[in-house]
C-alpha cells in the first residue's frame, strides 16, 4: 500500500475537464438560442435602451434526456424519522405569485447568457439572407471615384511605386552587367482611373402614423420593427442616415428622442407624410448619392378623400427609393371586412413592379415575420398581404 501526495502529480491543477465540458454545453446553448432568435428579442426591454448593447438572456441548463417513467400522481420514497402513517411531514406548497420565485422546486438551474445585440442581429440577418438590400447599380450612381489601376513609366512623382521600381531595377541588372543601380527606365508610377462606384451611404425615413387611432401598443410594435429594420440596414451600409416623420393630418420631422412620444388626436392624412418624405429625399438625400429606404407604419385607416393624393405621392416615392415598406399595425389581430386604403395603394404599386412590400404587425411576435417578409428571400415567398 502506497500513499502518494498530490504534489507528486501537480498536473491535476492544470486543467479542468469539468470546465471544458461546461463550455461545450454553453456553446450548445448559444446555438440553441440562436435558433429561437425571434422570441429572444421580442421582449420590450430590448428596444427600450438602444444604448445598451447587450441583452441578458435567461436560459435553462440543457438536459441530456434519458428514458424515464412518467411522473406519478403521487411519488413514493423511503425515508427515516418519527411519525405514524398519515402524519404530515411537509405541508403543501403555498400557492401564490411567488411560489416559484428563485428557481423551481426540483432544483432546476437557470443561468443568464449575455449576448451582444449586434451579434444577434448578425445571426438574424444571416438567417434572413438579405438579398434585397443591394446598393443601386453603379451606372445609376453619380459618384465617380479614382481607383488605382496599373502602372506607367511616366507620372507624377507622388505616385512613384518604389517597390515596383526596385523590382524592375533588379530584373534589369540581372541581365545587364556593371550598370547603374537605377535608371529612368526602371521607374514605375501608379495610374489612376476615374470610375463610378456604388454609394455606400443610405438614408432611411421612418414615417409613423400618430393619429388618434394608433394606440400605445401599436406604436410600440412599430418602433420595434423600425429598430430592427435600421439594425439590418446599418449592417449593409457604411453610413446610414435616419430621418423620422410623424403625421396625423399634418406631417412633421422629428428628432429620434421625440419621435415615439409624438401623438396627435387629429384625423389621418397619409399623403402629407409621403410628400414630406419626398421633399426630404429630394433636398437632403440626393438619390444619386444615397440609397433610399422608406418604412411607413400605420393602422391603414386613411381619410377617404386623401386617396388620390396619397397614390400619386407614393408613386413618386416608389420611383426613386430602393425600397418602400409598409407595416400595418393591428392588422393581424383585428378583423377587417376588406383591405384598408393604404394596403390597396401599396398593393397597386407592387402590381406595377415598384420595389415595395407590406406586412401586417399584430403583436411583437409578428416583427420577425415582417422583417423576413421585407428583407427575406422574397423570390420564393411573396410578402404576405395585409388582410
Amino acid at each position, binding site marked *: 500500500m502506497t500513499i502518494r501526495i498530490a504534489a507528486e502529480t501537480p498536473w491535476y491543477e492544470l486543467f479542468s475537464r469539468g470546465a471544458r465540458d461546461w463550455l461545450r454545453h454553453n456553446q450548445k446553448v448559444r446555438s440553441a438560442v440562436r435558433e429561437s432568435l425571434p422570441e429572444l428579442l421580442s421582449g420590450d426591454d430590448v428596444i427600450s435602451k438602444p444604448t445598451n448593447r447587450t441583452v441578458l438572456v435567461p436560459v435553462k441548463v440543457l438536459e441530456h434526456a*434519458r428514458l424515464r417513467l412518467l411522473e406519478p400522481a403521487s411519488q413514493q420514497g423511503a425515508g427515516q424519522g418519527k411519525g405514524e402513517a398519515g402524519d404530515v411531514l411537509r405541508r403543501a406548497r403555498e400557492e401564490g405569485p411567488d411560489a416559484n420565485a428563485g428557481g423551481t422546486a426540483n432544483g432546476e438551474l437557470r443561468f443568464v447568457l449575455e449576448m451582444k445585440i449586434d451579434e444577434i442581429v448578425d445571426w438574424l440577418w444571416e438567417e434572413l439572407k438579405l438579398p434585397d438590400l443591394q446598393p443601386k447599380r453603379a451606372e445609376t450612381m453619380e459618384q465617380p471615384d479614382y481607383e488605382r489601376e496599373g502602372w506607367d513609366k511616366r507620372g507624377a512623382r507622388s505616385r512613384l511605386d518604389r517597390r515596383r521600381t526596385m523590382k524592375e531595377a533588379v530584373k534589369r541588372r540581372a541581365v545587364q552587367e556593371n550598370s547603374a543601380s537605377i535608371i529612368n527606365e526602371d521607374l514605375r508610377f501608379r495610374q489612376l482611373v476615374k470610375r463610378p462606384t456604388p454609394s455606400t451611404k443610405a438614408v432611411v425615413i421612418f414615417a409613423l402614423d400618430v393619429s388618434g387611432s394608433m394606440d400605445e401598443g401599436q406604436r410600440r410594435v412599430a418602433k420595434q420593427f423600425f429598430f430592427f429594420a435600421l439594425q439590418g440596414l446599418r449592417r449593409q451600409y457604411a453610413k446610414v442616415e435616419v430621418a423620422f416623420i410623424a403625421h396625423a393630418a399634418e406631417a412633421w420631422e422629428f428628432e429620434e428622442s421625440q419621435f415615439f412620444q409624438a401623438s396627435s388626436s387629429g384625423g389621418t392624412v397619409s399623403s402629407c407624410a409621403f410628400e414630406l418624405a419626398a421633399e426630404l429625399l429630394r433636398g437632403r438625400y440626393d438619390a444619386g448619392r444615397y440609397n433610399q429606404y422608406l418604412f411607413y407604419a400605420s393602422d391603414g385607416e386613411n381619410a377617404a378623400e386623401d386617396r388620390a393624393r396619397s397614390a400619386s405621392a407614393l408613386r413618386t416615392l416608389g420611383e426613386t427609393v430602393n425600397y418602400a415598406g409598409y407595416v400595418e399595425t393591428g392588422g393581424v389581430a383585428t378583423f377587417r371586412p376588406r383591405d384598408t386604403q393604404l394596403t390597396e395603394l401599396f398593393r397597386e404599386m407592387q402590381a406595377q413592379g415598384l420595389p415595395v412590400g407590406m406586412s401586417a404587425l399584430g403583436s411583437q411576435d409578428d416583427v420577425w415575420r415582417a422583417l423576413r417578409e421585407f428583407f427575406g428571400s422574397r423570390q420564393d415567398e411573396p410578402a404576405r398581404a395585409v388582410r
Partner: protein
Amino acid sequence: MNPLAQYAEGLERQARLRGLDYYPVDFEIAPQSLMTEIAVYGLPVRMPHWSFGVRYIHQLVRQSMGNSKIFEVMFPGDPCRAFLMDSNSLAENALVTAHVLGHADFAKNNQLFARFHEMSGGNIVEQAAAHALRIQRAINEVGVERVEAVLDAALALESHVDVSGELHRQRYPEFVAERKRIDKGAFHKRFSSLPGESEPQEAPTGQLRTAIPPHPEYDLLWFIAHYAPDLEPWERDIFLMVRAESLYFYPVFACQIMNEGWASYWHARLLREADFLPQPTYLEALKAHSDVVRPFAAGEQTALAVNPYHLGFTIWERIVERDGLARALEVRRDEDDFGFIRNWLDRELAEESGLLVYEESGDGEIRVASRDLAAVREAILAPKFNYGAPRVAALAVAADGSLDLAHDHAADGRGLDAARAREVLGYMRRIWRRAVRLQTADERGDKIELAA
C-alpha cells in the same frame, strides 16, 4: 515517515488480522478540483461530453452551499485506486483509509464485484483513460458534432445494458437450424385424422437466417453496436466503450447500501481497535464517523431519503453481533442490495432506524404512507430495479431497417415520459440512421407509439 502512512500500515495490519482480504490499494491525495471531477464523471479520466459539464456545475453549486463534501473515492480493481481529498485532516484521513480497506475487501470478495472484475480485468481506471483518448482522437478526426451525436445516444442509454450478460458478448448465431413446426390447432388435428386425409409432407426448410433480434433484447448498447445498419467502426467503438464503463459501474450501483455499510462498519471497528492512534485523533475521527453515518442532517427529525451509510452500517453491526463475523463475511460475499435488504433488514431494525415510506402528492404535501416492513423494503429498493432505468427492449428490425422498441410498461407500472423519450429516440435515430419507434403507454395507460 508520514504519519498517515504509518497509521495506514497499522490499520492494514488490523484489517488482515480480522480476516479482510483485498487487492493492493494505491492511495493518492488529490486536490478538490480532481475530487469534484471524479464525483461528476464517475472516473478520474473519462470521455468528454457536455452533459458532464452540466453535472459539474450542479456539483459546484452543491459544494458552494456546503452540503456535499467528498472525503474519498475508491475504484475497485487490481490494484484498487483510492483518492483522498487533500483538505482532509489527518484524523479524517485515518478514518477514510480504514473505510477504503472495507471497500477493497468488499470489492474483491462480493460475488457481483468479482464477476465484473473477472470480465473487465480490474484496470478500469486505465481503460477509461484510454477510452477518453480514443474519443479525443475520433473528435480530431471527424469533428466534435459527430462524436457528440454518438455519445448523446450511447450515454442516454447507459443503463440499458444486460447486467447478467457478458462484457464480451457474441453476436447472435447467424442461422437457426430449421423453422419450428407451427402448432396447427385442434381443428386441423381432427381434420387430418379423418379417413383418407394424410398430412402433406412439408419440405425441410433447411438453415434459416435468425430473426434480428431473435428475442426481445434489453442490452440496447450492445444491440445497437452490433446491429445498427450503417454504423461506422469508430461509432461502434464508442458504444462498446460506454457499455464497458456502464457494466463496471453496476456492482457499485447494485451494492451501494451493503458496500458503504461494510466500509463504515470496518472504519469504525478498525479505528476502535487501533491502539496506535493518539486519543485526540481518535476522537476527531469518531466525530467524522458519526457525521457520515447519521440518518438526518443536524437538527432534523426526519429525512426524505435513507442514508445508505447509516442503513448499511446498522444492518452489518446487527449481523456481526447476532450471527458472528464469519457469517457476516459470507453475507458480504453472497448478497447484493436486493438480497441484503430483503433478507437482513428485519422489523426490529426497521423500527429502531425509524424507516418509513412517505408519499408526496401533487401539491407538495408529504405524508408518512406506511411503516410496513415489506413496503419499506420495496421503497428502498424501487430505484434500483433494472439499473434504475425503465425496461425497454429492441423487438425487431423492420425490412426497411427501422427499429422497433417496446417499453414493458406493465412491469414498470406506468408509461414513459413522452417528451424525454422522444428526445432519446431522436438521439438514437441519428445513430441508427433509420426510423426508430417505441411502444409505451400514456398517462391513462393506453398504448401509444412514439417515433423519431
